[in-house]
């Protein structure tokens, strides 16, 4: 991989990481729990992106597998919280 590609990857990584900050801010400052949940959801989506880019940085393809698991199962967390918010009592 050339220097430029490397630099590009690093830049992408930094941008993605910086994007986490507004998400955190939105989690902290929000009117409702649903908004916060949405911010967390976006944050985990960004993390999936970061994981994929990290696969490039580390040069190890199977890191993407972690992204798959993360995407698949942060979703379950989102759903559980959503259900909690809509039901008040879950079970």
């Amino acid at each position: 991989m050339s220097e430029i590609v490397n630099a590009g990857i690093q830049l992408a990584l930094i941008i993605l990481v910086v994007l986490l900050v507004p998400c955190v801010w939105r989690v902290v400052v929000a009117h409702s729990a649903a908004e916060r949940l949405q911010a967390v959801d976006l944050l985990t989506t960004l993390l999936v992106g970061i994981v994929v880019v990290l696969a490039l940085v580390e040069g190890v393809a199977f890191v993407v597998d972690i992204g798959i698991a993360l995407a698949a199962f942060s979703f379950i967390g989102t759903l559980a919280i959503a259900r909690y918010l809509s039901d008040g009592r879950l079970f």
Partner: protein
Amino acid sequence: MNILFAIATGIMFGLGVYQLLRRDLIKASFGFYILFTAINLFLLAAGAFEGTVPAYVDAQNEVISGGTPSDPLVQALILTAIVISFGTYALLLSFIVLASRRFKTVDSDEIDDLIG
């Protein structure tokens, strides 16, 4: 860099301790969780910190990508610690549910029948 990591570990530990000392049992249980996360960071600092590539070998038994592998043993320890602390944590949470049913409170200051 390593110093930052170590300091962050300490700060997280401090945060966990503060949280653990809340009278709200649910918050205290969060403190419990934070502490176990912090201890994983500590274990990482104690061992796996200097690596540049994952601890994998290729078919020729060479470290993949040719870098310095991070310490695999510490990773294995952390895995074990995570699993155990999670099991304990789940148990703690179920205790809190039971406490809210049995003692009608989740305030640890009010769960104080065992004295003397």
